[in-house]
């Protein structure tokens, strides 16, 4: 029992990332009808926002401490980050420690901006072109973004730790009455899941309970009619693109402590997120979220020793297998609607 719960929990963090990326993909697809192959790159850029914030915060001034010497006997050079000079050592250290949460604030405007620029500058011109062209141009864009990041940050993963406070693990099992050490779970993954749930809830609430969201939903159902009613639906869809980009970016920022970001992390997640979208049903927001968590949990079950000894490497292919089975038996996906991308 506790092993099952542990695997479900283990699946949640990856599942959260899948769900967030798939949610953004579906938002873009549902509103603009564009398949965004660059969405993984947005996730990656989000992660590198966290790296950038960390680097900015740790910018240091070098001073020479005459009282101490290094092992060669020269006066010791001490690097002090600027923030420690400005706010005092303790507050400064705390700020640096909290660089990932701070990066969230920093990344939202940046991701929104990138989203707007991408939509207005590039994708806008591709609405009338075939889907294949949309795929190709966003694929090209993904390559470019990835290479730019690689140029500036190098090819190696960059460790970006979570705040010290959350670096340990929590013994969840004790809280619900299992043995000690039965269910150990890192704090940050728990936070990641809570954060993902918050964002997903926020997006759904935004679409469901605001006038803006209502108009967007109307536009998703029938863009032309909404346009005829004198509503500038294009502008709203652009904003939705920005929001989708921000969701992907935030997913990336928060993912950095779990896995150090490198330049191709976006592509790795993108392929799986597409599978998630297809399994969930193209154009269905709840479907994308549901499929994201389901596949994440499934993957974690397939990674158990029991599964990998029975069928070696099952964890590598389980998601694709499930996707193929789902598409063959339910071609529209789990929650796909009729009439979306039927031809």
């Amino acid at each position, binding site marked *: 029992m506790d092993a099952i719960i542990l695997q479900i929990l283990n699946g949640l963090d990856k599942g959260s990332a899948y769900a967030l990326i798939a949610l953004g993909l579906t938002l873009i697809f549902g509103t603009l009808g564009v*398949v965004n192959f660059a969405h993984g790159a947005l996730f990656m850029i989000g992660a590198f926002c966290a790296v950038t914030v960390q680097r900015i915060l740790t910018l240091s001034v070098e001073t020479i401490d005459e009282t101490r010497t290094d092992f060669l006997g020269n006066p010791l050079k001490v690097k002090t980050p600027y923030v420690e000079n400005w706010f005092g050592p303790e507050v400064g250290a705390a700020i640096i420690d909290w660089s990932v949460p701070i990066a969230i604030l920093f990344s939202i405007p940046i991701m929104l901006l990138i989203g707007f620029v991408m939509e207005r500058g*590039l994708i806008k*011109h591709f609405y009338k*072109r*075939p*889907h*294949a*062209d949309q*795929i*190709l*141009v966003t*694929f*090209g*864009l*993904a*390559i*470019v973004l*990835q*290479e*730019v990041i690689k*140029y500036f940050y190098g090819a190696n993963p960059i460790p970006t730790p979570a705040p010290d406070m959350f670096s340990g693990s929590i013994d969840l099992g004790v809280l619900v009455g299992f043995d000690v050490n039965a269910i150990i779970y890192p704090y940050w993954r728990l936070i990641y899941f809570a954060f993902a749930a918050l964002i997903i809830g926020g997006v759904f609430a935004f679409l469901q309970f605001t006038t803006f969201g209502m108009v967007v939903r109307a536009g998703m159902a029938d863009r032309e009619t909404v346009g005829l009613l004198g509503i500038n639906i294009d502008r709203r869809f652009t904003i939705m693109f920005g929001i989708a980009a921000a969701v992907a970016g935030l997913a990336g920022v928060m993912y950095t402590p779990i896995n150090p970001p490198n330049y191709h992390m976006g*592509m790795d997640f993108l*392929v799986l997120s*597409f*599978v998630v*979208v*297809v399994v969930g049903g*193209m154009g269905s927001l709840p479907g994308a979220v549901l499929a994201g968590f389901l596949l994440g949990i499934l993957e974690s079950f397939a990674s158990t020793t029991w599964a990998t000894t029975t069928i*070696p*490497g*099952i964890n*590598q*292919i389980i998601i*694709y*297998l499930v*996707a*193929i089975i789902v*598409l*063959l038996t339910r*071609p529209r996906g789990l929650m796909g609607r009729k009439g979306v*991308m039927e*031809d």
Partner: protein
Amino acid sequence: MMGMNNKDATLFLIVIVLTLLAPFILNPFPTDSAMAQFNAGYPDLMQRFVIFGIFAIGFNILFGLTGYLSFGHAAFLGVGSYSAVWIFKLFTYNVIPAIGLAVVLAGLFALLIGYVSLRRSGIYFSILTLAFAQMSFALAYSVLSNPKFNLTNGETGLQVYADDPQMFHGPNLPDLPHLFGLSMRANHQMSVGAWDFNFNVGYYVCAVIMILAFYLAIRIFRSPFGMMLRAVKSNNTRMTYTGLNARPYALAAFVISGMYAGLAGGLMASVDPLAGAERMQWTASGEVVLMTILGGAGTLIGPILGAGFIKYFENIFSKINESVLHSWFSFLPDGLEDVIVAMVYPFVGKGWHLTLGMLFMLVVIFLPGGLVEGGQRVMKLFGKKKSGSGAKEKSTQSTPAE
């Protein structure tokens, strides 16, 4: 001639001449000169030109004619490579059975994947093929390389070891892939004045096969079957309403292009008896998409041009480093030189993929017909009123870059 109209026959002849004379055409600069780094006439690169040419020709039969954008073609290339290497390991180093098995197995694999993927079209199809290819990659990389059942040798890659059975390996045959005793690595270097020209058996085997593959592609393009494939692309619904089932046609195209990919994979293993899982990764599938689009999807010569273009510049750009740049721009005043070098540097050397990505975006945005369409536009600009035969003129104009 041979079932082709005059235009196609001319194009075909041009391709034959260019491929067979490639060792001369690709080596225009004397070996000692500073420009020698732009020479492409060495065996390894020439082999890559024709092998990727075959791959792209095959991909174009699917994408160019039916419009189904597959993101998983590298899987067939990988299957071809693995099956060829297995023939080398178990039976003989002769390339003919290896290539044969590569084509057949890749075809069967394509039949399986195509049968499932073609149940959906458009984006679903792209994503399904992508998923299949990634699954094949994962299978090859880890699942099928466990100690109990080692089919692919995982990360190391499949290669021929001294203790492999090689049942039909004769005593006086070379210990490398060969064509009835003629080693694929055999190379004849001809020195004419300051020039060195390389004639490589591996290259000529691949080149002859590419010419055959190209001929087959021409025939497919001009056949009633090719017409049906175009109908799938232009209006699938109408085709269905006239009582034709589009799926068998699309499936046939998928299998044919899968076999082309398998052929390319088999040849790749033939010139270098090694097969690795990274050949199946989806970036490799993306590469053939880039080649086809860049050259011009749906045209005969486009894919070959695209493959040659990408492989040539990949090779040349990767060689350029900072000191080469400095030597180029050394005629400029010092400050300006540094600025220009700093501006160009991100796009060359390791930054080649950045240039490729940008180029690809520009082509998709402004020139959906690729290099071929570009050539046609240039031709029109110069007032030649033969726009109908643009593909042919294009080939005369830019194949040397191959």
